C-alpha cells in the first residue's frame, strides 16, 4: 500500500447527537488501519425521509451527502443502516435525477460499514485490546441484509482479550427499532425489544455489543425502563480499546 487512502467519515446523525465516543473510536480504528480521516460537514443520510416515503427531502439529502463525500477515496460509517441507505437506496432516491444518478452509483461503490471496511478493504485481522466479560452481538438488519456484514464484527471481537462471545438464539430477528417505526407503533416495538432482551439475557452475557446506535438506543432504553442490568456498547468502542469508559446510558 503506497499512499494513505482519504476516508470521509460519515458519523451518522445519532452518533453525532448522542454518543460522539463512537465517532472517535471509528477515527482511531481507521487511522490505525492506515487511513487519513476527514469529517466533512454533514447532517443525516436521509433514511428517515426515505423510509417515510418523503421522496423529495430524501433526494435532497442524498445529493447533499454526494456533494460532501464524493471526493474521498472511501466513505465509511459506523452503522450498517446509514451505509445501507447510501449504498442501496441513493440510486433509488435519485433514479429520476440524471445528473446525480451516476454520482450516486459511484458513491455507493466506495461506501462501507466500518467493521467490514476494516477487514475487507484494509485487511485488518487482529486487534490488541481488552474488554473483560461475556458479550452477545446484536446484528442490525441493515448490516445483515443490506451490507452482508455478519462474520466481520465477530471475527475481530473474538480477538479481544478477556471477552467471551455468546451467540443469541435468533440473531437474525429484528430488535424492533426500525427508525420511526419505534414511535409509530411503540407497543409492537416494545414487544420486539423484549423478545430480543430475553434472548440476550439467556446467553448469559453481561454486555451487548452492536454495530448500529439506533438499535442500541432502543434496546438500552427499554432495558433502563425495565431495570435490566445489561451494559450496551458499540462495536467500535470495544475494538478501539475504549471499553473502560462508561457504557451507553451510564452516568
Amino acid at each position, binding site marked *: 500500500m503506497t499512499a494513505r487512502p482519504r476516508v470521509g467519515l460519515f458519523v451518522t446523525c445519532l452518533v*453525532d447527537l448522542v454518543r460522539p465516543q463512537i*465517532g472517535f473510536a471509528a477515527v482511531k480504528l481507521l487511522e490505525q488501519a492506515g487511513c487519513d480521516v476527514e469529517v466533512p460537514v454533514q*447532517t443525516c443520510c436521509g433514511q*428517515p425521509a426515505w423510509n417515510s*416515503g418523503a421522496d423529495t427531502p430524501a433526494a435532497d439529502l442524498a445529493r447533499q451527502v454526494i456533494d460532501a463525500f464524493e471526493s474521498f477515496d472511501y466513505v465509511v460509517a459506523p452503522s450498517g443502516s446509514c451505509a445501507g441507505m447510501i449504498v442501496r437506496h441513493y440510486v433509488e432516491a435519485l433514479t429520476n435525477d440524471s445528473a446525480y444518478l451516476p454520482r450516486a452509483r459511484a458513491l455507493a461503490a466506495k461506501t462501507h460499514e466500518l467493521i467490514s471496511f476494516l477487514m475487507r478493504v484494509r485487511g485488518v485481522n487482529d486487534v490488541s485490546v481488552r474488554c473483560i466479560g461475556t458479550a452477545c452481538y446484536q446484528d442490525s438488519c*441493515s448490516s445483515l441484509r443490506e451490507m452482508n456484514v455478519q462474520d466481520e464484527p465477530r471475527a475481530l471481537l473474538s480477538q479481544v482479550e478477556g471477552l467471551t462471545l455468546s451467540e443469541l438464539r435468533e440473531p437474525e430477528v429484528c430488535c424492533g427499532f426500525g427508525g420511526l*417505526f419505534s414511535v409509530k*407503533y411503540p407497543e409492537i416495538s416494545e414487544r420486539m425489544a423484549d423478545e430480543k432482551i430475553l434472548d440476550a439475557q439467556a446467553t448469559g452475557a453481561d454486555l451487548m455489543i452492536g454495530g448500529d446506535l439506533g438499535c442500541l438506543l432502543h434496546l438500552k432504553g427499554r432495558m*433502563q425502563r425495565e431495570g435490566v442490568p445489561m451494559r450496551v456498547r458499540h462495536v467500535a468502542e470495544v475494538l478501539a480499546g475504549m471499553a473502560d469508559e462508561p457504557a451507553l446510558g451510564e452516568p
Partner: protein
Amino acid sequence: MNLDPRRFRENSRAALEDPGLRIALGRLRTHFAAGRAGAVERYPGWEELREQGRAIRDYSLANLDTLLEQFERNMTARGGHVHWARDGAEARHIVLAILQQRNARSIIKGKSMVSEEIGLNPFLEARGIVPVETDLGEYIVQLRREPPSHIIAPAFHLNKEDVTATFRAAHTELPADRSIAERSELVAEARRVLRQHFESANAGITGANFLTAAEGATMLVTNEGNGDLTRLLPKTHIVLTGIEKVVANLEQAAVLLRLLTRSATGQDISSYVTVMSGPRATGETDGPENFHVVLVDNGRTHLLGTQAQEVLRCIRCAACLNHCPVYAAVGGHAYGTTYTGPLGAALNPGTMGLPIAHHHPNASTFCGRCAEVCPVKIPLPKIMRHWRAREYASSVAPASARRGLRLWAFFARRPALYRVAAKTVSRVLRLFACDGRVRTLPLFRDWFAVRDFPAPHGRTFQELWTARK
C-alpha cells in the same frame, strides 16, 4: 372480532395483551421457520430455483391476458365452465347463481383464501346457505365465528385448549364426558363430524394454487385430504381463485410447487397435490358432474404496470408472515384483512385502497427478512415503501407526521443551522437526564411510552471534532 384494517393500532394493542396468543405465535419459529430452513438446506440450488420461480411468475404477469384466455379455451373444451369476476360482489353472485342453478343447499368448502377475501361465507349464510369448512383449521375458526388468522394455518392463533373448548361448545350432540384433550382426539372428532357433511354435500368449493394455461388445469395442494373429498364427492365443484394464479403449463407449476411446499411448511412435497382439469369424463369412475372455475380480479389488475406489480408474483406460501417480527408480535387478526404480514402490507393498499389499509405498509421495520425468504423474490419492503410514498404524497398521511418530518428536513438540509440545532438538542437532552437516562419529555411521547432514552454525551461529535483540530 373487529375486522377493520383502519383499527390496526387498537387491534394490535389488544393482541399484545393476549398471553395465549403470545404462546401460539411463538410456534412460528419452531413450527414454520425451522421447517423451512431445513427444507431449503436439503435442496441443492435453492437460489437458482427461486430465480426460476421469479421468472415464471414474471412471465405470467407479462402475459396474463393471453394465458388466461388459453386456460379458458382448454378448460371449456373439456366441459368445464369458466367465469370472470371483476370484483368480490360479482364473484359472490356467480357462486350463488351456480349453487341455485344446481339447487345445492349443502355445501362443503376448503382451501380458498379468495373466498375469505370476497366474504363469501357471510354472503351465502345471509341467503340460507351455510358452507361447512373442511380444512381442520378453517373448520375450527368457522365454529368460533372468526376469520382465519394465517393464510395457510387458519387457526394458528389458537392453542390446543382453545380448540377443545370450541369443540365442546359446538359438538353438543356428542357425550359431554368424552376425552378431547389431545391433538389426535381433536382430529378424530373433527373427522367424524366432517364425514357426515362430506357425504351429504351437493356442492364443493375449493381454491387453486395454480392454473395451467396449456392444460387448462387447476392445481391444489393440501395436507389433510379434505380438498380431494370436497372436489370429488359432491356433484358440483366450484374452484374460486385469483386471476394471477395462472402459469404457462404444468411444468412451470411443478417448479413453483417445489418452492411452495418448502417455503410454506418445510415439506419437500405436500401430502396431496391434485390436478383438476374439468368434470368427470365419459368412462371415468369419479369426479364432479359440473365443474366451474371462477376467476377473480378484485383489484389485481390495478396493480399491473405499477411499482407494486411484483406482489402479484405471490404464491401464498406464507413464508413472509412466518418470518415477520411484526406478525409474530400481533398475529393475523390485528391486520383486519385476509392477507396479513408483509404480503398484506404490499397487497392490501393496492386492492383495498390506502385510506383503508394505510397502516399495513407502515407497520414494518423494513428488517428485510420477508424479502429474503420469499420464494419468488418479491421486494416486499420496497413495495411497502412505495405505498408510504403514495401516502405521504396524499392526504392520507397524518398532518402531524408530515409537519414533524418537514421540520426535521428543514434543518437537515441546512448543515450550518443543523449543527447549532444538534448542539442545542444534545445539551437539552443532557439537562433532562438523570442517572444515565431521560425518563420522559413532553415531546416524543411515543418513544417514552415504552422506553427511556440513554443519556447523551451532551456535546456533538462535530463540535468536539472541530475543537480537537
